[in-house]
């Protein structure tokens, strides 16, 4: 069960090698979290992540999960919920793709969309149903400011996050009153291995800062969390910039 401050005792991470997810798990383990499931494609990195969290005192198990195989989600995730309540699901998988290359390789572009959007739709719905049966729990979904308004420089990734973001908001409304709390997290540019080698955008943040924002959002039962918080203002302005101008902005 979550405590009065929304801190979970059990955590299921979808995308178990995500740096943001692991920073969040570390933070929550330092508070109350004792049981952690790391779901992802089996890899040494996934096992290393589990080992790292075990060293902090949590009971960590890994789980073979592939966002690109939605037909398996029901069975794979069903097993986790059958073992006990999950207080928080962190949907953290996603790929950035390579915009320049993907524009010329539609199959690769679709893979970005399938991972970030349709994979999350399937996993999100499976988890939502299980949480609803529990009558409590949080579903935290990592979206991105890139989904707020499509940009020339990364609209394939951006459009997949836009879909995910809209889906999550709708799911949150659908689950209102069921005891399940749905939270969209919209980080800006996060310095991590996913963005290594890219030119840093203004107001760049870190996985640890996102983790802190998630913990605060859980305490406040927030529905949308921006990281850093000032991005909310910036994006609400950018949203209204005329297309002709927006197209030329160096962002």
């Amino acid at each position, binding site marked *: 069960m979550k*405590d009065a401050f929304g801190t979970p005792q059990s955590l299921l991470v979808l995308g178990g090698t995500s740096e943001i997810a692991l920073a969040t798990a570390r933070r929550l383990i330092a*508070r*109350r979290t004792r049981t952690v499931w790391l779901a992802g494609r089996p890899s040494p990195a996934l096992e290393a992540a589990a080992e790292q969290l075990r060293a902090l005192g949590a009971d960590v198990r890994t789980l073979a999960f592939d966002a690109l195989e939605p037909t398996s989600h029901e069975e794979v995730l069903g097993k986790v919920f059958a073992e006990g309540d999950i207080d928080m699901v962190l949907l953290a998988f996603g790929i950035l793709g390579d915009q320049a290359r993907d524009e010329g390789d539609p199959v690769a572009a679709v893979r970005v969309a399938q991972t970030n959007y349709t994979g999350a739709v399937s996993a999100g719905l499976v988890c939502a149903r299980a949480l609803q049966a529990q009558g409590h729990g949080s579903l935290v979904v990592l979206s991105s400011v890139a989904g707020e308004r499509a940009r020339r420089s990364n609209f394939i990734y951006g459009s997949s996050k836009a879909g995910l973001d809209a889906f999550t908001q709708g799911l949150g409304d659908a689950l209102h*009153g069921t005891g399940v709390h749905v939270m969209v997290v919209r980080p800006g540019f996060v310095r991590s291995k996913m963005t290594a080698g890219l030119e840093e955008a203004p107001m760049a943040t870190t996985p640890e800062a996102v983790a802190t924002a998630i913990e605060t959002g859980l305490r406040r039962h927030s529905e949308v969390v921006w990281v850093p918080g000032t991005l909310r203002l910036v994006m609400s302005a950018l949203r209204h910039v005329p297309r002709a101008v927006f197209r030329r902005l160096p962002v």
Partner: protein
Amino acid sequence: MSGDTVADMPAETVSVTGWGRTAPSVARVVRPRSYEEAVEAVRGCGRRGGIARGLGRAYGDAAQNAGGAVLDMTGLDRIHVIDTTGASATGSPAGGAGSPARGAACGTVLCDAGVSLHRLMEVLLPLGWFVPVTPGTRYVTVGGAIGADIHGKNHHVSGSFSRHVLSLDLLTADGQVRTVERGTPLFDATAGGMGLTGVILSATVRLHPVETSLMTVDTERATDLDDLMARLTATDHRYRYSVAWIDLLARGASTGRSVLTRGDHAPLDALPARTRRAPLTFRPGQLPAAPLHMPDRLLGRATVGLFNELWYRKAPRSRTGELQKISTFFHPLDGVPHWNRIYGRSGFVQYQFVIGYGKEDALRRIVRRISGRGCPSFLAVLKRFGEGDPGWLSFPMPGWTLALDIPANLPGLGGFLDELDEEVAAADGRVYLAKDSRLRPELIASMYPRLGDFRALRAELDPRGVFVSDLSRRLNL
């Protein structure tokens, strides 16, 4: 939504919280109106079990059950027998085996678990009887009072509520109703057992005789924590009721400054002639309810600091024999319905612990830490407990108990309270489950040494785990 429960038993799926309004969860709330419907409700609990709920005054998640059933017991609200002849009531309306009389030379009441202490006062005071123990609110049920084994300002004299319970009828997981006598393991597991042994249907409770419905109250101020503890230690035995309001925002030399209010039921001859004609009137006043929506940060350090300053200064340095209404003396907050809303949407946390006599240094350290951190608390009270009662998860034990309220949105509060827990546990103290919403589960076994027995009894009595609450899930009770 009622599943396979009795066709017309009221049931709805709603979000449920404790009085602190944190950590909501959704449950199917059913409201049995008879013992038969209660049996039916327990049998129809389903996979995620059920838990009894009274008037929802437990601050945390004790009467919540996410995804399962919550039995709203306030529909079982009959007072069956008021026996003031000295030969205590023996009936067993729920059909359990009859219990032999215990010849207590005092009055008793046999009533359903959903009867509130408020209702008991309305009925009993005009007859010259009072409930044996009342907490800071009248709006708790008899079932809740036993389940949390509540205490009041008279704990140093009268112990906790269960000390005055002669027997109770308990609906257990198998759907049977058992009459549970004092002194049996099931009684001791149920007193303070947070509803996890079964659903209390009715109880026979010993009453306290009074001549009037007024209190005679002595008030004095203590300039700091040591002054307070010295005064309480020296003269508490002279009073049936005793409590101290403590200003936890005061720092430096005045850390722990407080206002002691102690008293007893006023004898008839203490009343002015006019009041003496109707000495047992019970008419608690009521103010308008707190608004539904309040700003989240209304109660900050500045506002609470100001309130505390005024509250301390308005109290007389020393006054004796003041006559107060029962509601004024015991239940000042009951005058404002829904007062818990003043903390806004994010709610508040109650923290109450007890530390044994001889460990005063730990208490001093904790008070210094709280005031040093500036926790905006205006409902903080300190009290001396007397002997504890045998309930396995019963909270009171001989020592000092401090209760305080803190807005839940105070940044870093979770970690801070964890540190206080460590101090409490290191001093062999414990925190109160009826108020808890955030304790670290690892500490519970050391705070409640009989937890092992409690778990064993539950495993035997309720092997399928029918009775379960958010509290029991969170703390693995």
